[in-house]
């Protein structure tokens, strides 16, 4: 199976492991992620204002290009996924945005939200299946206690993201189980890490990230996994205090598949 793939800026710079291990694992799992030509930064945060159009254009270009290639669009970074999926929903359901964007972009065929946007974890869960994944595991991560960290962007708002139950998700736990490790559920796994507050309000972000790590370690997780470079950054700068290590879910995947 071939998918169009949108990497995003951070995966080409500070979060290269997130991408590297995803691509290696995809090879083993038998699907192809074809990086889009001339993709542009998604803008990192979804434009929440009803009157903003320009900030949505790069996502629409990405979506329209996937449509042209007849592919589903796969993302890896939680933030890119959030932005592109929500802009896609706007193009599907909000006529005013759709008309303005299409008039401006002047692409050969109007884009109306036709493309299916999948996060890599959704490809594993819905297209490959965790049972199938479990069969391909070469080095089961037996005995490791791993906590899933979902954060905000994959889950909320549930109506648009449709990723999992926003209050009690289980996708990443099932993923961890498929790799042979023991998933650890802890209360703060869907709480915010502080996000962009870490740039201008470091103390507050540190405080939020510490609560998450503390919650994970109280429930005896030794490591936690995330799909978001900013979550990883916020958690990592506080990691020392808690002994819980933070990695990308793709590192875990590659390790279990024997390609790390």
């Amino acid at each position, binding site marked *: 199976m071939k998918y169009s793939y949108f990497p995003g800026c951070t995966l080409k710079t500070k979060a290269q492991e997130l991408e590297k291990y995803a691509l290696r694992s995809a090879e083993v799992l038998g699907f192809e992620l074809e990086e889009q030509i001339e993709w542009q930064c998604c803008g990192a945060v979804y434009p929440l204002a*009803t009157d903003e159009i320009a900030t949505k254009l790069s996502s629409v270009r990405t979506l329209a290009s996937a449509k042209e290639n007849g592919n589903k669009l796969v993302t890896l970074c939680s*933030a890119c996924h959030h932005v592109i999926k929500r802009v896609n929903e706007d193009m599907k359901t909000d006529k005013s945005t759709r008309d303005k964007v299409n008039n401006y972009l002047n692409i050969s065929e109007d884009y109306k939200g036709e493309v299916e946007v999948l996060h890599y974890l959704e490809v594993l869960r819905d297209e490959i299946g965790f049972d199938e994944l479990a069969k391909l595991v070469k080095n089961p991560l037996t005995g490791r206690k791993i906590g899933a960290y979902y954060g905000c962007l994959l889950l909320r708002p549930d109506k648009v993201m449709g990723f999992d139950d926003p209050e009690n998700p289980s996708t990443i736990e099932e993923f961890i189980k498929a790799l042979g490790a023991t998933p650890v559920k802890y209360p703060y796994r869907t709480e915010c890490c502080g996000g962009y507050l870490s740039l201008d309000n470091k103390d507050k972000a540190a405080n939020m990230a510490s609560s998450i790590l503390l919650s994970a370690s109280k429930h005896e997780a030794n490591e936690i996994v995330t799909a978001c470079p900013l979550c990883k950054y916020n958690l990592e700068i506080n990691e020392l205090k808690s002994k819980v290590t933070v990695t990308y879910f793709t590192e875990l995947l590659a390790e279990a598949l024997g390609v790390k």
Partner: protein
Amino acid sequence: MTRVKVNPSNRDKEISRIIEISGENIYSCMQCSKCSASCPANSEMDILPHQVVRILQLGNYERIVNSQTIWNCASCFTCGARCPRDIDITKIMEAIRLTVIRNKGESRIDVDELPEKIDDKMPHQAIVSVFRKYRK
């Protein structure tokens, strides 16, 4: 207790603008405070999310734009996810920020100070986000 009349038709221009940009119906808020109780950044807020909605209902624009709250909101979408009246407070916070930073000279982040705030490991995602949230 004094009775305060909330009259949507009398609200001033700025408040109307905030409501329009957010696309949310602030008048359906019943002040249950679930948003504030859920907010992970509430310890840094001088006005809690449910109070922001109330102050908007009452039309006190100055109080809202001069609050620390809007700059300490992390856009985590928790408030909106839990609101029993389906109000997306994250969008209201964004609309208030925008009514401030869309004015000339009202940017919240000084580009010259940025290098000091960025370390080697900070992902681009954080920097781009801050440009979107604090500057126009």
